[in-house]
């Protein structure tokens, strides 16, 4: 089971700012073990953020995104107390969904 994300969402002047910290190794597939064997690629490929069933941000990642990916974006609307949900899926088909309550 993949590790949970840290999500922080705050609304100010009608705009909700969402900060996401995912926990993932983001292996490029180019690094080698000490004995020279290649570490297989393992990275998040897709991320999706939703508010009240509406997609507010969608991202596709390649191997160049840093380990434990960080994201920040802002969308209009969003009410304090309501939830933002974020999902990701990686190239092995593993996935994770977490929610955060919007703070004022």
């Amino acid at each position: 089971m993949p590790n949970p994300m840290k999500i922080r969402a705050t609304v100010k002047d009608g705009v909700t700012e969402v900060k996401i910290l995912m926990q993932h190794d983001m292996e490029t597939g180019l690094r080698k073990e000490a004995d020279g064997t290649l570490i297989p690629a393992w990275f998040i490929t897709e991320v999706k953020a939703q508010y009240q069933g509406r997609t507010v941000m969608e991202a596709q990642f390649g191997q160049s995104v840093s380990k434990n990916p960080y994201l920040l974006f802002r969308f209009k609307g969003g009410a304090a107390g309501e939830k933002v949900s974020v999902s990701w899926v990686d190239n092995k088909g593993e996935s994770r969904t977490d929610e955060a309550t919007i703070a004022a």
Partner: protein
Amino acid sequence: MSKEIDLNRRKALKAGGGIGLLALFGGLSLLRPTDALAEWNKAAFSSKAMDEALTGLGATAPESNATAIQLTVPEIAENGSVVPVTVSSSLANVEQISIFVDKNPNVLAASFTLPQGTEALVTTRVKMGQTANVVAVVKADGKFYRTAKEVKVTAGGCGG
């Protein structure tokens, strides 16, 4: 009388069928919660060169525009494995923001799809193998624009 029964039976079948279908879809979405995500752009993300990656995104020869796209990167990155990148744009109707590192083995780092109501701004962190250009490509009103900035990557962390 038989007609009436028949009618009721049809109604019941119809309703039952609907519930069955709903249950089926519900079950499927439980199994694969990420089905609704757009398909990963393998061609663009596997590209080894800028031109190839741009073509993979459908962004052949984007217009250079350093004023409408704000790209914020450090001048010098002491740690190439965590380079913060912020891209924002003053263009109207921004639909997509993509971030490239032109000397990485796979040049396309990330591509964001921003629906109406989401601001034209993203921040993330990318890996950089060596000193290279970070390139931001913004799609607005169906047209592609680009800007780039060099980031010096120092190995030892003693500054540049």
